[in-house]
């Protein structure tokens, strides 16, 4: 199934054979201290910069009816963000992973994002649209 929106992702997660737990890492675009004038100019128009993890959360698809629900909860729970990275943790034998079991994968996910290894995750903007990084 093609993931063309956040709600596609929710549908896809609900249709998997094994129960899923969704992992979210919220990030903010920041300009590095040593940015060049060109990088600063691009950043001013909403391009470039680095993505810094701000907070994370894990949810079962059942707990999240829509992107709007995630956006609303994130606004109540933490700082403003630019991109949210999503990954799915699969359960086994019909059992969904617990929040405790999600901690270590979330920790690895944050470390990956910090080091720029984001290929395994699906990024969405604040409108719930998938983002591609050129």
């Amino acid at each position: 199934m093609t993931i063309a929106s956040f709600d596609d992702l929710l549908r896809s997660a609900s249709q998997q054979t094994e129960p899923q737990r969704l992992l979210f890492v919220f990030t903010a675009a920041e300009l590095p201290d040593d940015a060049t004038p060109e990088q600063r100019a691009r950043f001013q128009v909403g391009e470039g910069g680095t993505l810094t993890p701000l907070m994370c959360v894990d949810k079962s698809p059942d707990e999240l009816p829509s992107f709007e629900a995630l956006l609303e909860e994130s606004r109540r729970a933490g700082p403003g963000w630019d991109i949210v990275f999503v990954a799915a943790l699969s359960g086994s034998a019909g059992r969904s992973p617990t929040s405790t079991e999600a901690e270590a994968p979330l920790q690895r996910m944050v470390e990956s994002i910090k080091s720029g290894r984001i290929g395994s995750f699906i990024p969405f903007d604040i409108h719930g649209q998938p983002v591609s990084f050129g």
Partner: protein
Amino acid sequence: MSVPSTAAELIDHILTRFHETHRRELPGIVALARELEGKGATPTLADDLDVMAKALEMHMFKEEMRLFPMMEQGGNTLIVHLIDDMQAEHLDHADVVAELEHRMADLVAPAGTEPDVAALRAAVAKLFDDLAQHVQLEETVLFPMFEARPAS
């Protein structure tokens, strides 16, 4: 040293004074304990110190990526559950520290390793002292700012 008074200032202080310090010092402590094991020092401590380091890293991760962002937004109905979790982990850490202190007291330095054993004792003592200050600041100053907050 004056202690910051707002939640945001406290969190910033905890991150720089404690989290960064623990992360900087723990790898060297584990490496030194491992080196001493190789020279015959007993009881062996490196694996247990490494387990403690990993548990502490996970604890700090939860604070940094779940609890602290919520606190910086002023808290909400979920925060008391997160605080309960962190307090339970503090109790677990206290048990681990007590056990490691006991075993450190039994540490025997093989001939020629006395300076390294003394260095390990000093580094672990400082780590545990920092941990005690870290936990006390959270338990007695930071967490109470949110525990009595009405649901929003």
